[in-house]
């Protein structure tokens, strides 16, 4: 609770710094927090905004579910098999640090214009961190857990479900925190680059028209959504770690 308060204070400080910057720069391209908030409220009254927001949420939701399930499954697979894990790790790390936007044309060429391209792009961003975290969690899991399972006569399937998964869950949640953020980023970048709807498109469009209040209002909204998502995952994490 004290932390939440502190975070709120930091948020306020950031807003103040923003206001100060706005006053110093004195340029319409950097609207004040007040203007931005007003714009945000105005957006909430705009059905078009909700259309875009729901487009983004749909793509994001599908991408998150698929990249989480896929990332954990792939991570478990690679983690359980030491050789596969060692072989795959540098490749995954390399893919992770690749500027994936440049691959977006390929994604478009393969998936076309619709929602699937954005989902694919979200997954490209969100899957790898989760895979890496899951895999490393299993590799670093205390071997004694698996030995205990063996002594209690558990089948491999029982072992995975009742011992391995609970044991690595904290790391998986940490990975998910990063994965979820990056997944959202991927979807938004996809929308920014080639799309006809979604918040990313909306921002890009607003940028082309020099409508900075809208740009910053959406950025602010996204920051808040990301923070809340993160807070939920953190709470899950706490509940699990005891």
């Amino acid at each position, binding site marked *: 609770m004290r932390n939440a308060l502190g975070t709120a204070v930091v948020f306020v400080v950031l807003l103040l710094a923003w206001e100060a910057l706005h006053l110093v720069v004195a340029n319409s391209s950097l609207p004040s927090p007040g203007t931005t908030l007003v714009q945000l409220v105005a957006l909430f009254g705009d059905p078009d905004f909700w259309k875009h927001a729901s487009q983004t949420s749909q793509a994001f939701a599908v991408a998150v579910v698929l990249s989480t399930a896929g990332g954990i499954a792939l991570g478990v697979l690679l983690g359980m098999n030491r050789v596969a894990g060692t072989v795959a790790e540098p490749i995954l790390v390399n893919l992770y640090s690749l500027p994936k936007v440049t691959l977006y044309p390929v994604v478009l060429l393969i998936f076309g214009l619709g929602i699937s391209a954005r989902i694919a792009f979200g997954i490209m961003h969100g899957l790898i961190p989760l895979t890496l975290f899951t895999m490393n969690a299993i590799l670093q899991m*205390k071997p*004694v*857990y698996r*030995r*205990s399972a*063996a*002594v*209690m*006569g*558990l089948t491999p399937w*029982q072992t995975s479900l*009742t*011992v391995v998964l*609970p*044991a690595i*869950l904290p790391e998986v949640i940490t990975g998910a925190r990063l994965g979820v953020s990056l997944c959202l980023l991927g979807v938004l970048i996809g929308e920014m680059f080639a799309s006809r709807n979604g918040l990313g498109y909306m921002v890009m469009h607003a940028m082309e028209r020099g409508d900075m209040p809208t740009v910053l209002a959406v950025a602010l909204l996204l920051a808040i959504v990301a923070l809340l998502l993160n807070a939920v995952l953190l709470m899950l994490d706490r509940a*699990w*770690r*005891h």
Partner: protein
Amino acid sequence: MTVVALAEVASVMPADDHHARLAGVTRVFGRPGSPNCVHALGPIDLDLRRGEFFSVVGPSGCGKSTLLDVLAGLAKPTEGTAEFEGRPIDGVPAGVGVVFQEDASFPWLTVADNVAFGLRRAGVDAAEVTRRVDYAVGFMGLKAFAGAYPAQLSGGMRQRVCIARTLVMQPRLILLDEPFGALDQQTRLLMGDELLRLWRETSATVLLITHALDEAAMLSDRVGVMSARPGVFIDVLETGWDVDRDSRIVSHPRFGDLTGHLWEKLRAESLKHMREN
């Protein structure tokens, strides 16, 4: 030497009396001949008598945990045979419980759930699970912590959770791999007393791996001293303690004698080892 009550005995015992038996067991890691091939253990001949308390001491890396793995069915001997209750060991045999060197309590479960874990997996019915868990938790002095999570407990209490978890399965052979390794002397003393009580009440056979010579001297019926890797038994010592013993025996003169004797064995082995290198 002033040791009177000590008697070195051959480890071969009458067949009807033995509970588990290793004969000519060795264990080699890696392909033989390959550069990273490690001869970790043996050859080992060992007969565990039914109901005895047997301790194994030996230098680090001599193969104690490997020996335990073979008895627990977690590893196959490279050569030789392993038997438990007359049948060859193939996979983890029913009736064997293991407490590992590291803390193996599951941090995502409460103490009670930890203890119940194996029983539930084994399909024991709920009422029976509750009964046995209550008993084991009480026996290990964890009643007040049944709902707590391992992170809230001290190292010694967590190790007790692991012992309780093994205990509820009512094993006839309990294998303990340096279960008190991380604890301080005072806690070890208390844990030792509890272990003795457990052993007496369940009349199970106990094999305890430890690096503390005095602990081995205090707790066991017999102490097996292993050489450096590849570990073989260089001595098996009969302590001659009563079944009804507890930590009070530290004031018995024989305790000091036994400890001194074990230290001497260890020292001789160390010197031999140093000279060889």
